[in-house]
C-alpha cells in the first residue's frame, strides 16, 4: 500500500503529469456543468424530438411525427387558418415581423448615437451613461413600467399628441399595435447597449483618417459614410447578428406585455412563448423539443447566411 502511494507521489511529481492533473482539476467543475447542461441536454433535445411523452408515463418513439405537427401547423397558417389552430405559425410570423422592425432600427440608432457621441464634446460620458442604462435593467421590469406608459391615457400617448395629434391607440389591447409596442420597448432597451459597442469600435479608428478627409474638404456626413461605415463593418455585422439572435428568441417582453397566450388575436405571440406553452402547459415536451430545434435552425441559417454575405463575426 505504501509503495503504491510512493508510486503515486513520484508519478504526480513529474512536471508533465502534474500539469495534466492540475489542469484537469481546475477545468473539471466548469467542464462538467457545461457538458451536462449544455451538450447532454442538446443531444437529449434531439432524442426527445422523436418521442411522445407527458413527463410521467413511458416514452414512445414516434419518428418524425413531432416535426410533422410543426410543419402542419405552418402549412395551415399559410393557407389562412385562425391563430388558435396555428400557434407556431402565428409566433413565427410575429417574430419575423418583430425582428425586421427591431434589428434595423436598433442598429441604425446605435450607430448614429455612437457617431455623434464620439466627437470631441463635453459631457460625452454622461450621454454614454444615459444610453447604456436601459441595457442593464431587467427586461421584465422595463416591460412592467412600459405597460403603464403605454396605457390608453398614458404618458406615451400624451407625448405623441405633440407630434401626431389625434393618434392615440390603445397600444396593448389593440392587435395592430401590440407588436409595434413590444418592438419599441425592445429598441429602447437594447440600442443603448449597442451604442456602447459601436463607441468602442469607433475609438479604435485612427483620428488621422478623419483629419486627412477634413483637409480634402469632406463634411461630417460624407466622412461618416465613406470612412466610419466601411471601417465599422465588422462591428455592424456583429451587432446585427447579436440583434437577430436576441430578437428571434424574444420571450420576456412578450410574456409580460402580451401575456402567455399572446394578447388580443395572438398578435404578441412568439416562437419562444409557443415553446414554453408546448412544454409546460400543453405538456408535450417532444413537440416543444422539435420546435426548439426548428428555432435553432432558423437562427443558425439566418446568422450563417448573413455572415457569409457580409463577413464573419470575430469573437
Amino acid at each position, binding site marked *: 500500500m505504501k509503495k503504491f502511494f510512493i508510486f503515486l507521489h513520484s508519478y504526480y511529481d513529474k512536471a508533465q503529469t*502534474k500539469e495534466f492533473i*492540475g489542469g484537469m482539476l481546475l477545468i473539471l467543475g*466548469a467542464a462538467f456543468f457545461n457538458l451536462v447542461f449544455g451538450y447532454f*441536454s442538446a443531444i437529449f433535445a434531439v432524442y426527445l424530438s422523436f418521442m411522445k411523452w407527458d413527463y410521467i408515463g413511458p416514452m414512445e418513439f414516434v419518428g418524425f411525427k413531432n416535426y410533422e405537427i410543426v410543419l402542419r401547423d405552418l402549412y395551415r397558417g399559410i393557407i389562412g387558418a385562425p391563430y388558435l389552430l396555428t400557434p407556431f405559425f402565428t409566433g413565427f410570423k410575429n417574430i419575423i415581423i418583430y425582428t425586421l422592425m427591431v434589428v434595423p432600427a436598433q442598429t441604425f440608432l446605435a450607430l448614429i448615437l455612437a457617431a455623434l457621441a464620439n466627437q470631441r464634446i463635453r459631457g460625452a460620458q454622461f450621454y454614454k451613461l444615459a*444610453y*447604456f*442604462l436601459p441595457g442593464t435593467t431587467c427586461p421584465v421590469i422595463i416591460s*412592467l413600467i412600459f405597460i*403603464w406608459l403605454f396605457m390608453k391615457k398614458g404618458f406615451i400617448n400624451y407625448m405623441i399628441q405633440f407630434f401626431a395629434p389625434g393618434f392615440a391607440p390603445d397600444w396593448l389591447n389593440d392587435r395592430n399595435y401590440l407588436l409595434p409596442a413590444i418592438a419599441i420597448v425592445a429598441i429602447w432597451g437594447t440600442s443603448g*447597449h449597442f451604442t456602447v459597442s459601436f463607441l468602442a469600435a469607433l475609438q479604435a479608428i485612427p483620428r488621422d483618417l478623419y483629419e486627412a478627409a477634413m483637409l480634402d474638404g469632406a463634411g461630417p456626413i460624407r466622412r461618416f459614410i465613406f470612412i466610419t461605415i466601411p471601417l465599422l463593418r465588422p462591428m455592424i455585422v456583429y451587432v446585427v447578428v447579436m440583434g437577430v439572435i436576441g430578437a428571434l428568441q424574444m420571450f420576456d417582453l412578450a410574456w409580460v406585455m402580451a401575456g402567455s397566450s399572446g394578447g388580443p388575436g395572438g398578435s404578441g405571440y412568439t416562437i419562444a412563448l409557443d415553446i414554453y406553452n408546448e412544454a409546460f402547459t400543453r405538456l408535450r415536451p417532444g413537440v416543444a423539443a422539435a420546435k426548439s430545434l426548428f428555432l435553432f435552425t432558423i437562427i443558425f441559417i439566418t446568422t450563417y447566411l448573413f455572415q457569409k454575405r457580409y463577413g464573419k463575426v470575430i469573437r
Partner: protein
Amino acid sequence: MKNDIVKLSWFIVTYIVLTGFALVYLIPFIRSITASFMTWEQASRFPPEFFPNPFTLENYEKLFRLELFPRWILNSALYTGIIVFGNVILTSMAGYAFARLRFPGRDALFSVLLALLMIPGFVTLVPNYIIIYKLGLVDNILGLALLSIADVSSIFLMRQYYASFPSDLFEAARLDGCGPVKAFFYIAFPLGKPAIGAVAVYQFLGAWNAFLGPLVFLRTPENFTLPVGLSFAFQRSMWVEYTPIIAGSVLAAMPTLILFVTLNKYLIRGIVITGGKG
C-alpha cells in the same frame, strides 16, 4: 467665416440630438421613480403630472404588506449570490487552465465549450427541466443556479485575460517548484482581479435580471425571484392600483442602477472584452 457657422450649427444639432435621446432613455426611469411616490389616482391622470402631490409612501407599504415580497428579494439575492460566487471560482480556474497549462486535448475541449455559445437557451430548456426534475431540484433555487454556474462566455473572458500575461511570470513559479494548482491560487487568482471583477459584474446583472430560468424552474410563489414575482403579482392583479407594481419595479431595479452608477467604467470596458453579451 462660413466654415465657422457650419461648424457651430453642426455642434448645436449634435447636442440637440444627443440630449433628446438622453431624455428618451432617462425619462421612463425618472417618471417611474416619481410615480412610485404618487397615489394611483394621480399617476394615472391625463395629462400626466410629474411631481408627487400628495407625497405618499403608501405604495411601498402595500408592497411590504404582501408577505411574499421580502421573500422574493431574498431569493433574488440568494440566486445572484450563488451564480456570482460559482462563476468567479469555476470560470477563473478553467480560464487559467485553458490559457496557461499544457495538457493533451486542451484546445479541443475549449473549442467544444465555446461552440455551446451557438446553441440557444430554448433548445436545452426542456431537457434541463427534465434533468433537474429527476434530481428532485425543481422549485429549488440551488437547482436553478446549477444551470448557469459556469457560463461559457465568462470562461472565454478569463482565458483571454490570462493569455495576455507574459509567460515568464508563470514560468518563474514553475521553476521555483510551484505546482499548477498552487500557482493558480497564489499567483493567477490575485492577478486576475480585473477580469474576475468584470465576470462578477456581468453575472450579477445576468442573474438579477434573469427571467426564463426562474419562471420555468421555480414553481411556488414563495420561491420566486423578483422578476418572476413581480410579473406574477401583475398578472394576478394583486393590487387594484398599478402604483405598487411601479414601486416594486423601482426597488427591483435599484441594485442594478446603483451598480451601474458606481461601476459604469468597468461595465463599459467589459463590453469591449466580451463584445457586449449582456
